[in-house]
Each structure stands twice: as structure tokens, then as C-alpha cells.
């Protein structure tokens, strides 16, 4: 055992690959939060009045709310008056092509391995790149608009499609939903907006890369995806953030609405700066993600690979309102060093014959803590609801923790609920077996972990699955036990 410990000690020094600061002149508001800041923010974005009022109302409610403390995470108190709520790269004029984008910005993307210029040609992925708070480039828009699909930044949607925004914004996650959702509603800067019209199958994966830059900027993304009757869309969200000493707050809200016979597939690969090996720095990721299967036969599927952030507080959920609707949650959450993750899902069964499927794979290494927290709720009127949950935990080393908090709340006797949970450790005999075939210990651990996550990776779009595997291997480097 002592050799195992030595290995952990000796290998836990791995620098965050994506840590650097891009030097771009920022157009920022002063630190702190009050009505004036919100008005200034809204004015900067030239928002219509309904949007400003919505924000101010949310802010009022937020001031009356308390920060939640029930999650199994521990962090110093956040001073919300010391955060800058708006920061945008200075934009000279409307950009028509990538040539007009700040070359420094483009270099940043290249370091991240997502050269936009190439993305256009690649594999039919349209990228709406969010750099700090304002979308700087949107590709493939023409192609999508031919089909009537709207894929744009949230700010654009507020201007160009106010009726859709008014109708759906806050309809799944109301501003009063929770502390962080209220904060987001008051100060959200930008994000993505997707509308897929009736009967349209979106021909490409829609993808957004988020990136936090500019010191002390909390990022408050707002994403709204609507799949109208009989439509289909697959959306990918991928994230990296530069290295930073102070903790940065990130409180996003994602709302999904699937109408009758519609399907939304939402995939995330999250790789925000987790803090250094001593637990210093790192992103606080307090996200509210929820979808509603509004009418019958709708389907919403969340797939997430979470490797980053100092603290993750995140429960992508599905409200199964329509009869025969389906909710799915596939998750890999990896924590290393001093990371803390409290993540899981909520499946709320309201309609008849609704089904939900949960596969959660937690991996803990270093001194990290990884918790699965899930709720399966079957309401009184939901006949023949089905749920299957599988929660697996994998431990690497002996200083980390894995916890499972499944909540099951059933009010209808016709429901069928299954829950399976396992906890395992990577065995020395497995590592030795792979060593004996010429595979190094680090590669062996990576192979074993990737095998363990296979059920989730299978749900990711092909190119994303590869990225996810690389990311996991990267996060595992230096965690070998």
C-alpha cells in the first residue's frame, strides 16, 4: 500500500493545460450589484424594457433569498458585491467574418484547440462562441435559417425574437426557483438561444464553447432551447477556463422545452479550472439546468462529463409532464485534488407512462469529494411511471470520498422504480495486468476509468466522445494510485 501512496504523492503535480489570460481590452462595469448596475448592464446591451423589468424583479427576489447550504460542498462565503457583473471584449463594429475578430481572441481559441475557421468546415458543427459574456462569432447561421432554425446569442434573440423570449424565458426555471437562478435572472450577460420549428430535424450538432476570461468576472450564462412539435435538436456545450487565483463564480441557467413528439439532446463537457493541487483558486459552478417534456411523447436527454471546477453544484432535471415522455440523465463526474462535486438529477414524473433513466458514474481521486444527489418523484396522477437509476462510484487512492444521496418520492402505486448503486476501487491487479502487457500505469488507469465510463460516453456525439475521453485522461494525469 505504501508504494501506492507514494505514487499518488509523486504524481499529483499536473498543471492545468488551459490556464492563461488573454490580453484583450475589456469593457466592464464596476464591481458590485444594485439596481443601477442592472440598469447599466441592460442599457449596454440595448435591451427592451420587458427584459430590464424582468431583471429588476428577479434582483428584488434574490435580495430576499438565502444562499443554499444543503449540498455536501464547503467554500468560503462569497461576497456578491466584489464581483463584476459585466465584461465584454470591446467590439468595434458588427462582425461579418472571422477576419474581423480580434486576432488575440482567435489565438485563444486556437490554444483551446477550437480554431473557428476550421470548425466551419469540420463535421457540420456550428459554433456560437461565447467569449466572456458576449457572443463574438456565430457560424452556419445561414444554413440553419434556411430550415427556420434559430441559433443565436441570447442578446440577439432578445432583439430579434422578443416574443419567443417572452413566452419561454423563465417558464422552466422561474427567477424565484433558487438563489443562484434568481441571481442569474437579474444579471445574466449572454448565452445561447435555439428554436427548432415544427417537424424540423436539426441536421447538425449545435455547439457552444464557453470560456471565462477577464479577472473577477462572474459568468452568468442563460441558455434557452425550444424544440417545437416533432422536432429534434442535439446541443453541445463545452467549457475551459484560464487559470486564476481567486475563485470565480459561475451561475448559469439552462432551460429546455420539448413540445409534443420533440426530442432535445443536451451534452456537456465541462473542464473549468479546478484550482491547483493545494485547492487554491478554481471555479465555483452553481448551475440550474432543467428541461420540460411539455406534451406527449417528448424526450429530453442530458449527458454530462464534468471534470473541472473547484465546486460543482448541478442537477440537470427533467419535468415529465406530457404522457409517454422520457427523461434521461447520463453523467460522468470526475474530481481530483481538492475538488468538490455535488451533482445528480431530478426526474419529476407528472404524466402517465413516463419513463426516466439515470446513469451516474462518479470518479474520485486525490482528496476530492464526489456526491451523487438525485430525486425521482412520481406524482399522484402519474400512472405507470418507470424509473431506472444506476449510480456507480470509483475511488482512486484512499483520501477521497464518494457519497450517494438518492431521494425517491412516490405517490402512485403503479410506479416501478429500480435503483442500483456500486462503489469500487481500481484494483492493483487490474493495473498490473495492463502493465504486464506493456501499458504504463497512467495509461492503465486512464483505460480502466474510460472503460468504467463507457455507458455514458456512448451517449455523446462521436467527436465529443473523443474529446471527453481525452479530457478524462488529462484530468487523471497525476492521480494514479
Amino acid at each position, binding site marked *: 500500500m505504501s*508504494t501506492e501512496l507514494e505514487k499518488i504523492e509523486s504524481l499529483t503535480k499536473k498543471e492545468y493545460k488551459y490556464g492563461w489570460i488573454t490580453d484583450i481590452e475589456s469593457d466592464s462595469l464596476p464591481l458590485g450589484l444594485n439596481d443601477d448596475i442592472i440598469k447599466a448592464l441592460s442599457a449596454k446591451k440595448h435591451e427592451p424594457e420587458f427584459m430590464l423589468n424582468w431583471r429588476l424583479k428577479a434582483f428584488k427576489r434574490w435580495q430576499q433569498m438565502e444562499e443554499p447550504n444543503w449540498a455536501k460542498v464547503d467554500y468560503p462565503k462569497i461576497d456578491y458585491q466584489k464581483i463584476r457583473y459585466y465584461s465584454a471584449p470591446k467590439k468595434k463594429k458588427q462582425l461579418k467574418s472571422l477576419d474581423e475578430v480580434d486576432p488575440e481572441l482567435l489565438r485563444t481559441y486556437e490554444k483551446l484547440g477550437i480554431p473557428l475557421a476550421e470548425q466551419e468546415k469540420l463535421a457540420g458543427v456550428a459554433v456560437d462562441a461565447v467569449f466572456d459574456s458576449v457572443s463574438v462569432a456565430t457560424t452556419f447561421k445561414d444554413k440553419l435559417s434556411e430550415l427556420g432554425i434559430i441559433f443565436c446569442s441570447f442578446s440577439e434573440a432578445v432583439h430579434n425574437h422578443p416574443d419567443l423570449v417572452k413566452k419561454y424565458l423563465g417558464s422552466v426555471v422561474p427567477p424565484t426557483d433558487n438563489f443562484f437562478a434568481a441571481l442569474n435572472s437579474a444579471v445574466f450577460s449572454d448565452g445561447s438561444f435555439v428554436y427548432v420549428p415544427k417537424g424540423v430535424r436539426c441536421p447538425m450538432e449545435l455547439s457552444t464553447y464557453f470560456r471565462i476570461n477577464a479577472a473577477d468576472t462572474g459568468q452568468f450564462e442563460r441558455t434557452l432551447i425550444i424544440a417545437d412539435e416533432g422536432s429534434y435538436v442535439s446541443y453541445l456545450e463545452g467549457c475551459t477556463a484560464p487559470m486564476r487565483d481567486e475563485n470565480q463564480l459561475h451561475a448559469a441557467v439552462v432551460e429546455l422545452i420539448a413540445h409534443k413528439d420533440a426530442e432535445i439532446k443536451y451534452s456537456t463537457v465541462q473542464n473549468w479550472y479546478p484550482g491547483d493541487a493545494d485547492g487554491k483558486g478554481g471555479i465555483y459552478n452553481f448551475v440550474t439546468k432543467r428541461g420540460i417534456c411539455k406534451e406527449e411523447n417528448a424526450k429530453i436527454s442530458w449527458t454530462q462529463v464534468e471534470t473541472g471546477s473547484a465546486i460543482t453544484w448541478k442537477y440537470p432535471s427533467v419535468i415529465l409532464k406530457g404522457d409517454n415522455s422520457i427523461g434521461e440523465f447520463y453523467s460522468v463526474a470526475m474530481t481530483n485534488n481538492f475538488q468538490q462535486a455535488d451533482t445528480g438529477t431530478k426526474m419529476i414524473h407528472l404524466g402517465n407512462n413516463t419513463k426516466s433513466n439515470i446513469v451516474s458514474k462518479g470518479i474520485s481521486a486525490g482528496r476530492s469529494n464526489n456526491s451523487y444527489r438525485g430525486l425521482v418523484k412520481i406524482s399522484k396522477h402519474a400512472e405507470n411511471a418507470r424509473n431506472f437509476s444506476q449510480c456507480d462510484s470509483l475511488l482512486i487512492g484512499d483520501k477521497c470520498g464518494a457519497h450517494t444521496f438518492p431521494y425517491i418520492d412516490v405517490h402512485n402505486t403503479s410506479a416501478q422504480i429500480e435503483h442500483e448503486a456500486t462503489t469500487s476501487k481500481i*484494483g*492493483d*491487479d*487490474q493495473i*498490473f*495486468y*495492463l*502493465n*504486464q*502487457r*506493456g*501499458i*504504463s*500505469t497512467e*495509461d492503465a488507469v486512464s*483505460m*480502466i476509468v*474510460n*472503460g*468504467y*465510463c*463507457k*455507458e455514458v460516453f456512448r451517449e455523446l456525439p462521436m467527436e465529443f466522445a473523443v474529446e471527453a475521453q481525452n479530457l478524462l485522461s488529462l484530468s487523471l494525469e497525476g492521480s494514479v494510485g
Partner: protein
Amino acid sequence: MLEIKNLHAAIEGNEILKGINLKINAGEIHAIMGPNGSGKSTLANVLAGREEYEITGGSVRFKDNDLLELNPEDRAREGLFLAFQYPVEIPGVSNSYFLKTAYNEKRKYQGMEEIDAADFLMLMKEKMKLIEMDQALMNRPVNEGFSGGEKKRNEIFQMAVLEPKLAILDETDSGLDIDALKIVANGVNKLRSKDNAYIVVTHYQRLLAYIIPDFVHVLYKGKIVKSGGKELALDLEKKGYDWLK
């Protein structure tokens, strides 16, 4: 090929190997026999580099290397292969992916280019015939849900693909029915050449009826107490081990 001199090894403070001397040349097959607890599996694991064992004395040369200085993966890349007595399962990792990785690690080590998936598939198909391996097993996760016999056959299949210089078969015959035993032995005989060598660790003579050893060594209480030709195995089968104690 391999030269073991006065090798001592212990686990958790208990000395298991108490001065092993053994020289193996290319082209030879050596059988190591002995009663339970005599140190046969320990010897196999020590040669492969399992960390739980502490080397308390002696030396091992493998080709031009001090074997004991190499980490387990480099021993493998140098051409030392252990067919495990109890092959482990690796859930979610397909047999073919695992084996392609292993194969390419070895190529990289030798300064050769990595082989792509299509070429590797061809290689696998050719080797599968040798061991009469079912293709379906290739796409399943490593050893997961394999029967005891399938696991052992999978070990020999891996050996066929990796083409080691020195292969150690640790009780590969245990858990095999007679048909599977013949297939495994056949595979070994086909892979055998003047350039490679085998150490066959076994309790019983029955495997040695199919894989004919050049030398038989009897391990008892951590020492080789008797060495001889293939007829020694037959003697042991008749007389047991007691006469050697």
C-alpha cells in the same frame, strides 16, 4: 535469454524464494513443477515485476538487461509475457482495443511506427485462427463474462499477438477441459521457435504431454530441488513429490 542467479524474494516479510538458479536459452521450453506453496507463482510474478514482492537477493538477466531494474511495462515491452493464472476483468474496455494498445506500446518502445486499426484487425484475425478464438470475444470487454477456459485461451491469444521472447505460462492448464487444453498447447507449439523460450508452470504432467519440455525443474520450499528432462515429469506423476523432500 534469461539467467536467474541465487534469487531471493519475500512477501510481507515472508521469504518465498530462497535462492533460485535457472538459465534459459532461446528455443527452450522449461517446465516448473512443484506442490502448492512451493513458490511457482511467486517466481512467475517476480519475473513479471509485481510490486508486492520484495527482492531480497540475487540477480536476473533478461537478454541484455538487468531485469530487476526494469518496471513491469518495460519488461513486457522487452518481450517478457506472463499468461496469468487468474486473468482479471477490465469492464468497458474492449479486448481488441486493449490488445491494440498493448501491441502499439511495444512497437513504440522498439522505435517502430504504430499500426492502425485496419492492419491490426488483419493481424488479429490471423492469430485468432491459431488459437481457434471466437471473434465475438474480441469486441467484448477484457475477460468480462468469459468462462474460465475462455480467459485462459484469451491469455494465449494475447501471447500470439504480442509475440514475446520469453513467455511464462502460470498454470494455464488449470480450469481447462481436455479439448481446450489441446487447443492451447497446439497454439504454443505453433508459436514456438528457435528465437523464443517458454517457462511452463504447472502442477500436472498432463499439459506436458502436449507441450513437450526440454527441461523439468522441481520447485520445493523456494528452491529448485531437482532438474531433469521431460521424463522427470512422468516420474513425478507416478511418485508424487514426497520422494524429493
